[in-house]
């Protein structure tokens, strides 16, 4: 199912139970899929027009009065255009705003270039109190939402609106701040966030066929990072490859290497975007061009294993 359908269905269920949840859109209620909520909850759904800075601060005002506002737009407009509003009215002001960014990184595809952002996780992570979620699939998003509502403090959530590869099933339990262990291995650690989990899983299968045992962690909560899971795995394998749909600067690779360089110096490498401009293209072409495919994960893992 499309993630936006999972999202809106679960949000509607939660809004029926909790009259403090409000949602705000900046002319993307149709694209984001929140439009049905406007019919059921006309008072608690607020269309602000094409004005993301205004939306962010209105949300801060609502949060200051006890509401839990969700603000929505494409990643760069909600997490970059309104960055000072997030800094002052949300983070410094300690307001319970949920900042929802659609179509992170390469998932912007044909709207790329201007609408594509590879720096959102880095900027959001740099705030002292904003939790950062990079969602893997629709089931995880649905299972995470009850927690997202009740979390204390601001939170940034990035997810793809449309269908993605599905990793988890109905038995999945979302645990904030905890990594999901997908493979238990001893030769190399692969840590993937968001939708790159699927590519990492494919690469892990191929590596295992080649006789390489992979310890595979899927990370939804990039901040706060599951430090225990990362260090335990790194201690076991001595090789860590991170995999993310984001710049190599300051995202998952940043989080993991900041931790390991201080606590457990470990050979690391990243599948991530390396200082390359954003652009348009279809998803597969973009992933190939930025080096974000399962083959790239396989190649970098192999090279990392051969490093001395």
């Amino acid at each position, binding site marked *: 199912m499309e993630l936006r359908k999972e999202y809106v269905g679960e949000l509607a269920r939660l809004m029926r139970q909790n009259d403090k949840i409000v949602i705000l859109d900046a002319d993307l209620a149709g694209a984001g899929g929140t439009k049905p909520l406007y019919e059921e909850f006309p008072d608690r759904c607020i269309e602000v027009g094409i004005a993301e800075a205004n939306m962010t*601060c209105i949300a801060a*005002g609502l949060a200051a*009065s006890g509401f839990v506002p969700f603000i929505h737009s494409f990643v760069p407009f909600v997490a970059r255009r309104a960055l000072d509003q997030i800094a002052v009215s949300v983070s410094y002001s300690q307001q319970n705003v949920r900042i929802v960014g659609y179509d992170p990184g390469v998932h912007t595809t044909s709207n790329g270039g201007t609408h594509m952002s590879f720096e959102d996780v880095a900027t959001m992570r740099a705030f002292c109190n904003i939790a950062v979620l990079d969602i893997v699939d629709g089931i995880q998003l649905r299972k995470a939402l009850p927690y997202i509502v009740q979390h204390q403090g601001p939170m940034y959530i990035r997810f793809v609106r449309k269908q993605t590869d599905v990793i988890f099933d109905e038995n999945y339990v979302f645990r904030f701040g905890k990594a999901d262990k997908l493979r238990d291995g001893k030769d190399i650690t692969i840590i993937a966030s968001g939708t790159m989990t699927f590519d990492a899983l494919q690469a892990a299968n191929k590596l295992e066929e080649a006789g390489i045992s992979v310890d595979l962690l899927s990370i939804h909560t990039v901040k706060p990072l599951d430090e225990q899971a990362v260090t335990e795995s790194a201690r076991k394998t001595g090789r860590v490859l991170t995999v993310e749909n984001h710049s190599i600067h300051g995202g998952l690779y940043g989080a993991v290497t900041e931790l390991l360089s201080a606590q457990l110096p470990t050979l690391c490498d990243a599948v991530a975007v390396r200082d390359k401009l954003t652009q348009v293209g279809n998803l597969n072409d973009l992933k190939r061009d930025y080096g974000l495919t399962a083959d790239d994960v396989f190649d970098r893992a192999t090279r990392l294993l051969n490093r001395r």
Partner: protein
Amino acid sequence: MDVKQFAKQIRRNTLRCIHSQGSGHVGGSLSIADLLAVLYSKHMRVDPANPKSESRDKLVLSKGHAGPALYAALSLKGFFPEEWLDTLNKLGTRLPSHVNINLTPGVDMTAGSLGQGLSCACGLALADRLKGVDGYVYVIIGDGELQEGQNWEGAMFAAHKKLDRLIVFVDSNKMQIDGLTENVLNIEDIQAKFAAFGFDTQRANGHDCEAIDRAIAQAKQTCGKPHCIVLDTVKGKGVSFYETMGPGVHSTTVTDEQYALALKELD
């Protein structure tokens, strides 16, 4: 306390607060003292013993650098001990020069990065509407601050949502850091601009407490529109040498000598 006496006391305590640090945002704090006196003596429905009361009126000081003036008013109302005024900007203080919702009882929104207050106030007003609370939300914006485009996003939204319990004051002291507002980037005609955005508007002498009071009372009579009251003020008002200092009064010293002279004028 008589409102004019209250205003004088706000000015004295504002300078006490800034004097404790030696310098600060003197000009734009003194220019809003009369407005704060009218609001906190005649209009703001607040309870210092219960500063987070759901039904209270709220004030967003969008020109957050005028914190010392608001702290002066709040301390006089009993929100916190007057001794706090002497802690301005010291590490760990409850009174940072730019207002912070989490630090100071009676402060309803954080501000300091200009242009965000009106949008935040729209959120507070919407929240009251959702809760069925009949409070007013007041916003104080500097005239130079109107150069920030986000104000106009907020204005458009407030009018579209008919937030008629939202009252915006523009402190038109006609100066900003780099000079006279009309020379830096002219934002007049402020009243006409807000009217064009769908506001009920008035213009009044920002140092005439009765005129301010009348303007607020009149705004409350008009339904279906947010309100804007442009207040013509003097930056540094109340102390002769600050009134004549020019744009430098935005951020300037309050030395022991200046403080003593100012208190004499405000006796």
